[in-house]
């Protein structure tokens, strides 16, 4: 089993969806989990309560990932709690924008890159002093980075940037013993993704896939917990597709 006893973990965007499922999975594996949120304190506190209920350790942290210094502020809060050692960073917080090219505004575009690319980049930078030998960084990529699915070009481009960061971060941080990977979910039923909630979207999702079912957040969290663990100690620089075999 995945064992993260004695480890410290930060999951951004952990109040719901894949972040929530990941926070719970890491906590069940024994990690102390810092549950970051940007706008839903009630949902974040409920994740913390769920973790404490089964005897785990968790705390909620608020930071605005769209703000220029949001990652910096979050890193300072994390250091204040865990001190000198963070074992796992799941940079999950992200936003999507389902919009045609004509309908994508500069503000939307900038906000997508701020939250999905700038924040994870500087979060890793700011946490480097407390990441070290054996630490695992996990980014969230997307099926949309590898294949044209949905009308999501600006969002997809942010995830393409993540795949590139994975390779460069892994190579640059490998000598320090820090692993860097991403998981690339396909369509997952969450608050962020309404795609599979319509009849048409559901049919399209299943049409892409080998496994013919729509994923839930737990389908992704298992892969994240694996990458976080020492079982994945030789896995770095990879984007792991967790998409039920979508658009292969």
């Amino acid at each position, binding site marked *: 089993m995945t064992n993260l006893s004695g480890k410290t973990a930060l999951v951004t965007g952990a109040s719901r969806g894949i972040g929530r499922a990941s926070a719970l999975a890491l906590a069940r594996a024994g990690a102390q989990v810092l549950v970051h949120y940007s706008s839903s304190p009630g949902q974040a506190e409920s994740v913390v309560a769920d973790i404490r209920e089964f005897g785990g350790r968790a705390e909620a942290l608020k930071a605005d990932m769209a703000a220029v210094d949001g990652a910096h502020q979050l890193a300072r809060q994390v250091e204040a709690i865990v001190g000198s050692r963070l074992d796992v960073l799941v940079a999950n917080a992200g936003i999507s924008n389902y919009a045609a090219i004509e309908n994508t505004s500069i503000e939307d575009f900038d906000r997508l890159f701020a939250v999905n690319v700038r924040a994870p980049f500087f979060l890793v930078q700011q946490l480097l002093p407390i990441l070290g030998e054996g630490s695992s960084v996990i980014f969230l990529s997307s099926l949309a980075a590898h294949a044209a699915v949905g009308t999501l070009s600006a969002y997809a481009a942010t995830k393409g940037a993540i795949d590139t960061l*994975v390779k460069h971060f892994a190579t640059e941080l*490998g*000598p320090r013993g820090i692993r860097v990977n991403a998981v690339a979910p396909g369509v997952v039923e969450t608050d962020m993704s309404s795609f599979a909630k319509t009849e048409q979207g559901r049919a399209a999702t299943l049409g892409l896939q080998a496994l013919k079912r729509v994923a839930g957040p737990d389908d992704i969290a298992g892969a994240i917990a694996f990458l976080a663990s020492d079982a*994945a100690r030789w896995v770095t*620089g*990879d984007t792991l597709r967790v*998409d039920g075999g979508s658009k292969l």
Partner: protein
Amino acid sequence: MTKLTDKTALVTGASRGIGAAIAKRLAADGARVAITYTKGADAAAQVVKEIETAGGKAIAIQADAADAKAVIAAVDKTVKTFGGLDILVNNAGTAIPKPFVEATLEEMDRVIDINLRGVFIATQAALRHLKDGGRVINIGSSVGERNMTPGLAAYSATKGAVKMFTQGLSREVGSRGITVNTVQPGPIDTDLNPVAGDWATPQIANTALKRYGRVEDVAALVAFVASPEASYITGTSLTVDGGTNA
């Protein structure tokens, strides 16, 4: 109760190296394990003994991956012995490192027969028995995707072919919940590619983690792919290469 309790796995080419580590790991996770070997009867018996000593169940079957009849018989024997089949790990493989211009026809055929034809035969035989929700896990290679090592042109071509076989097959069996994936190791310390060998230095330099991998590192990823937690991962290639291909 561990995560592979009541599952049966067949691991090809498992008398030593990565295959032996996978067999032991799947057994430790609760699976009954059949292993095949070509020549290493003693080594295979030792793997079985280690699994049994740890409280597991295992059998060893002599079957050269290039011998279709023997491979099909090995699948049948596994099913007969353990009452079914849930997990096939196509691990048996060979490399004959040398400049391609010097490779003989026999050497080319041998690499294709074991690394590709052998995977086809074992997989087809296994699919006739594989239970819903089962797993086909092919051991590819990081050079099946990106090859920086001279002397492995033919080998890397077969591993690239396995990667595409994985994709294609996943579409045919997905409705039964069977997943098909490739695990792609980078440089791993084995008899075939020892960390003490002449070839090691450039391979280490190509990794991000600046070391060779261990067979247990590969087995851990295979165990994850075999587990219920990975039931939504299919048709893909998972690297365990220390960042070699990053």
